[in-house]
């Protein structure tokens, strides 16, 4: 097929991805907010569409769909575009929205300040490459390798941190071993205690309200109520100090009510988890959790070995698996044929799970920290992270493909030190997994003691 038809096919798929990103944005991400700037939506969907096109090109490479030269051209085109977005366009608009939300900046200064912010960003982005042995020094200043190498560092760091934390967190949340049984009576007594605290706060606030109203009461008002005021006037001697003391007591009680509420919330969460663990889905995830914890331990072990012995795997899992099948198991397989199909399946699985996983993580993150003022900035930050993440996953995916398919990535991305990125991934993965284990261990112990306290106080 000719160049034009191939490009049309890719363009149509890009439009499809763009629409997908748009729908995700409206239905999931900006669920509770009204969109005031369509530009934010546009940037997010465009980044998503370009990233998905990258993956699509890899899959086309494996399957052999479309012309070789078209694919090559498209690779360069999409790569340049996505680098332009993550280094120039999205950071510029992040700076723009941040500067706009600072209240004491006048309108005239917004654009110049944004340009200054962007220049500072690009300077630090450039300096990012200094401490790492990223590429051979023969490359020019504005070549694609310079940009990709730095984007790769950031993206690989994010990938490794998320993988490390996810690998540890998944068994923790899905395995029944870590769940604690919470009695209904405990929950009810905690609720009672919370409502009692609220009543105490209300009593104090009522006294404050009466105390502060008293000086303003004119003698001629409300004949029926003045007897009431007279009662109070005589009972309390020093109004102002009383108010201050009442206010500080009320503040202390409010703090207590917040603690009780958070304990109640975690108890309810634990109840829900126990309920969910009884369902079929829960049992299935529990089983998976055991396998996953084994996989996680093995991965930590392998990363340590890789780092200590400075070992980089040369063979990808597909070729190795087929070799094992042929030599050791004695199966008579057509290596070339199966190699293509198995790598297609493997890469397809990796692509789908990494896209889905990242979108879910981004959504959770967005719900947790966004507010109506900061929603635009946070969404653009997430778009930036998404762009860098997907570019780096293309980089790392090179390791999972047989040699004949690696060439396109090596050709397009240029002369990067790929081994460095794998080593860097292992290091950060190890650090992230170990610190998540420590963090979850302490959090688990803390919640266990809190629950014991709450049960003790409630009874």
């Amino acid at each position: 097929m000719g160049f034009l038809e191939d490009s049309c096919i890719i363009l149509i798929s890009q439009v499809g991805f763009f629409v997908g990103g748009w729908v995700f944005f409206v239905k999931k991400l900006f669920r509770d907010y009204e969109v005031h700037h369509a530009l934010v939506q546009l940037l997010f969907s465009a980044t998503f569409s370009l990233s998905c096109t990258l993956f699509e090109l890899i899959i086309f490479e494996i399957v052999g769909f479309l012309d070789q030269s078209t694919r090559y051209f498209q690779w360069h085109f999409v790569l340049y575009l996505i680098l332009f977005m993550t280094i120039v366009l999205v950071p510029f608009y992040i700076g723009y929205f941040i500067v706009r939300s600072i209240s004491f900046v006048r309108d005239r200064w917004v654009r110049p300040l944004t340009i200054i912010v962007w220049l500072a960003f690009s300077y630090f982005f450039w300096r990012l490459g200094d401490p790492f042995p990223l590429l051979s020094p023969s490359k020019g200043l504005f070549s694609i390798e310079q940009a990709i190498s730095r984007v790769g560092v950031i993206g690989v760091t994010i990938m490794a941190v998320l993988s490390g934390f996810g690998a540890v967190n998944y068994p923790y949340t899905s395995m029944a071993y870590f769940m604690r049984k919470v009695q209904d009576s405990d929950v009810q007594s905690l609720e009672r205690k919370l409502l009692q605290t609220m009543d105490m706060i209300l009593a104090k606030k009522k006294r404050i309200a009466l105390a502060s109203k008293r000086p303003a009461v004119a003698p001629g008002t409300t004949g029926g109520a003045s007897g009431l005021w007279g009662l109070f006037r005589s009972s309390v001697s020093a109004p102002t100090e009383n108010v201050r003391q009442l206010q500080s007591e009320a503040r202390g009680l409010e703090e207590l009510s917040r603690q009780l509420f958070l304990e109640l919330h975690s108890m309810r969460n634990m109840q829900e988890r126990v309920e969910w663990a009884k369902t079929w889905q829960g049992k299935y995830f529990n089983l998976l959790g055991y396998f996953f914890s084994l996989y996680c331990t093995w991965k930590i072990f392998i990363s340590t070995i890789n780092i200590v012995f400075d070992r980089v795997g040369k063979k990808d899992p597909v070729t190795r698996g087929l070799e094992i099948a042929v030599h050791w198991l004695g199966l008579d397989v057509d290596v070339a044929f199966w190699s293509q199909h198995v790598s297609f399946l493997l890469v397809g699985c990796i692509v789908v799970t990494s896209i889905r996983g990242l979108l879910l993580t981004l959504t959770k993150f967005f719900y947790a920290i966004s507010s109506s003022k900061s929603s635009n900035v946070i969404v653009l930050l997430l778009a930036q992270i998404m762009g860098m993440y997907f570019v780096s996953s293309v980089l790392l995916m090179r390791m999972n493909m047989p040699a004949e398919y690696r060439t396109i990535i090596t050709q397009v991305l240029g002369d990067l030190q790929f081994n460095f990125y794998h080593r860097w991934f292992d290091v950060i993965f190890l650090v992230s997994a170990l610190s998540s284990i420590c963090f979850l261990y302490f959090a688990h112990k803390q919640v266990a003691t809190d629950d014991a306290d709450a049960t003790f106080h409630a009874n």
Partner: protein
Amino acid sequence: MASIDKVRVIVVGDSGVGKTSLVHLISQGKPLEGSPSWTVGCSVEVKLHEFREGTPSQKSYFVELWDIGGSSSHRNARSVFYNPTHGIILVHDLSNRKSQQNLSKWLAEVLNKDSATSSRSIAVDQYDPEQFVGSTQIPILVIGTKLDLVEKLRANSRRTSAIAEECGADEIFVDCQQMRALAAGSSSAIKLARFFDKVIERKYQTREARDRVSPFTVDSRRSRPFKSYHND
């Protein structure tokens, strides 16, 4: 203090619409300094309200305003605050239309509190606010905040929200950072006072029926052609 009766009004709405600022403005009469952090759980304020001010049957009541934090992750724990309640104030952000659309979900959550002992979410699209008007008769008030932001964005900002029309509730628009937003005598303050009076009447209905001298003009501004009032 034991002789002043109280009523309970809960204030609900999405996270970040301005419930804490609003409650502070209503109860203290002056705007909240600085910007408050997200409400965890529930914060309470009281307002000493004069029921039927200016008539011989004037009486003081405590209106307890329960400002319930709106973050979606705390949904399973905050149902403890919903029962019992005598009035509901629904708050939405005028610069964010989604917060207004979510109000029907909030109303459903509050009114379905009894069936929500399991923590699964209710099918809110099956809930019809118009049914509510006939059944429970808890008075509702709808308040739109951040009026200052909307007047910058678009001129046509004062259309009544759908939920207010469906429940037959009053609606007021405020800018919670202005002290004069709820100044005595302004239409917003009158509607608020009317709402509190209605809440108190519902709770102490039997007692007040004995004391009623003339029907207070609760429904005079509402277009209800079949209801007329006479001075008997």
